């Protein structure tokens, strides 16, 4: 069996190299971009596709996915109405729509920001040497083979620049819309780089949705937070059930900056969120919360690395998973407190609610501490619905179904309520929480 898997992986890697030759011939990336694409492909060849014992993938089986012959990105026909239904109320004039990874100027509207938000092509932004250097460094240090594939193939993408002291009151929504394909599986590589200047503030909602399934959306987000900058970062994974979803979020936090992230996932064939978050300078604060509500064969996996590289910083994580059917969730989260990151405060808590015998959840909260004056906690719980709570609600006349739904909802709700955007909270009530009413 091991030999068969190795053969499959070798074949899959050859496919990627072959596809990359096709891509270079078709897209003909210009010099700046070509250098990045090629550096990333070299990195891909070094990393290779993960086998089951790979540290990052011990509980995530990607063999079937990487063996799928995904066609290269191409823009499918898109119904404007299907896209608009995913734009949150309040974001009609503050939204960027990427269809299959490409910014759609007709579907996007950022008039709410006037000149305060600069939106440009990420490829054009490579003329800024510091940005190009930053991306090159992330590629050379990349440890995630799927993010590497994104870097090898991306040839569009968006660069958002919020200048120093600019406060964007209105939230910006980015919609990653995948048209999918009825015939053969397709893959897209959306990419966004955001620079929030010193003392600037931005609220961002990224939503992932799809039209007809059978797609692999492999996105990368880079976020650079300047001194005392602030970002609220909400990801809503609401892809077609018949889809694969990978996202990598990399963020760098400068002095006194604040990054407040929440992820709400409804799962798909295989969804994986990778967070690589670097606290670079003193006084920064980071919050990362997540909720997954899964049923049937759905999967959501979180891989989190928080790097404390400076003293006097805080990080906190709260994750909850509700798993039923034969669904699977996992959280592999490590907080690394580097030497010199004294007086770090870090908390991590993962709670799981298991609603069926077939559901599966793997959790690995982890701490690596190389400083001696820090306060760190981590923990995980796994449980079913508590009989005493259920009985209490029944004695008040609630049926078993209603009582169970109320208890599971209340479990999930505590994370959803942390999201600051009422339209998102409302939508999750209708999508994520609705799944618990069955």
């Amino acid at each position: 069996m091991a030999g068969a898997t190795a053969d499959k992986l070798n074949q899959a890697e050859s496919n990627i190299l072959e596809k990359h030759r096709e891509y270079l011939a078709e897209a003909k990336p210009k010099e700046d971009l070509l250098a990045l694409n090629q550096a990333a492909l070299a990195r891909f060849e070094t990393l290779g596709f993960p086998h089951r014992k790979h540290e990052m993938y011990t509980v995530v089986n990607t063999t079937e996915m990487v063996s799928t012959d995904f066609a290269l990105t191409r823009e499918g026909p898109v119904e404007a109405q299907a896209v608009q239904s995913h734009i949150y109320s309040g974001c009609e004039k503050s939204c960027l729509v990427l269809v299959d990874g490409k910014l759609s100027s007709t579907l996007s509207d950022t008039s709410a920001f006037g000149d305060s938000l600069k939106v440009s092509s990420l490829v054009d932004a490579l003329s800024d040497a510091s940005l190009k250097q930053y991306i090159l460094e992330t590629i050379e240090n990349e440890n995630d083979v799927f993010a590497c594939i994104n870097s090898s193939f991306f040839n569009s993408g968006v660069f958002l620049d919020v200048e120093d002291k600019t406060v964007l009151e209105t939230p910006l929504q980015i919609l990653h819309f995948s048209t999918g394909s009825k015939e053969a599986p397709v893959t897209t590589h959306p990419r966004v780089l955001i620079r929030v200047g010193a003392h600037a503030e931005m609220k961002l909602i990224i939503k992932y949705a799809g039209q007809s399934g059978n797609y692999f959306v492999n996105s990368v987000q880079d976020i650079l937070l300047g001194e005392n900058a602030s970002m609220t970062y909400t990801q809503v994974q609401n892809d077609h059930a018949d889809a694969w979803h990978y996202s990598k979020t990399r963020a760098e936090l400068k002095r006194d900056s604040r990054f407040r992230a929440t992820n709400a996932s409804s799962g798909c064939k295989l969804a994986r969120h990778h967070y690589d978050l670097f606290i670079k300078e003193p006084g920064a604060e980071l919050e990362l919360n997540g909720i997954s509500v899964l049923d049937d064969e759905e999967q959501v996996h979180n891989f989190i690395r928080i790097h404390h590289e400076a003293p006097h910083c805080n990080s906190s994580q709260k994750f909850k998973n509700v798993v039923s059917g034969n669904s699977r969730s996992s959280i592999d989260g490590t907080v690394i407190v580097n030497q010199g990151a004294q007086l770090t405060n870090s908390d991590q808590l993962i709670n799981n609610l298991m609603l069926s015998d077939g559901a599966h959840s793997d959790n690995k909260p982890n701490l690596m501490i190389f400083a001696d004056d820090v306060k760190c906690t981590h923990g995980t719980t796994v449980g079913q619905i508590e009989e005493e709570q259920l009985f209490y609600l029944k004695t008040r006349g609630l049926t078993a179904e209603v009582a169970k739904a109320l208890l599971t909802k209340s479990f999930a709700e505590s994370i959803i309520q942390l999201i600051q955007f009422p339209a998102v909270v409302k939508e999750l009530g209708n999508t994520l929480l609705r799944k618990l009413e069955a």
Partner: protein
Amino acid sequence: MLVIKDLHASVDGTEIIKGISLTVNKGEVHAIMGPNGSGKSTLAKIISGHPQYEATAGEVTFEGKNLLEMDPEDRALAGIFMGFQYPVEIPGVNNAEFLRMAYNARLIRDGKEELDPLDFDELLDEKMETLGMEKKYKERNLNEGFSGGEKKKNEILQMSILEPKLAILDETDSGLDIDALKVVANGVNKLRNEDNALILITHYQRLLDYIKPDKVHVISQGKIVKSGEKDLALELEAQGYDWLTPTS
């Protein structure tokens, strides 16, 4: 209304109730007293249908229906309310919202229109004012972080909203300071009328200074060892339970 005949009940295979018979009629208040571990709470749990408590013999009927065959929620909808000795904390469920769901459960069962949040809020405010409860109870999550007294008051609030035919209060008076006890007694006395009935399970005679029972029963080692009028409670207060406990 409630008829219990030669009830035997056990939990985890241990027999706790060893033959209890009791009849509670409309308009009556019964106090059930007894030492710790005598089976008082087990009786309450059997009547409300706790899954871990099993009636092994005898029968319990409520308005002629076999109660033991009914699910806890059906018993509740039939008009039975149990005030818990240790009310359960349910984080994430808003108290006012929960109260409205419980209130509407019966309306839904009867195919009637549910009360909307605004109308229910009026009803809730009115009930809370009569009980002398602060508004904060509405905003908080169900029993989460409540003190012992707050939890018991919240039970009484639920009872006054649901207006049951038969309420069983399981040591609702335990651990209360006098002000909270007055709220509880006040709630009970407001609910009392000719058509409903009440079983007060208590360890202390003090509650009976505020709620006058029609009958007092003493349970010991799973049996009713003495029944009488309200004076019995005073006797118990003066003499303790020892004189009633069967010597083995």
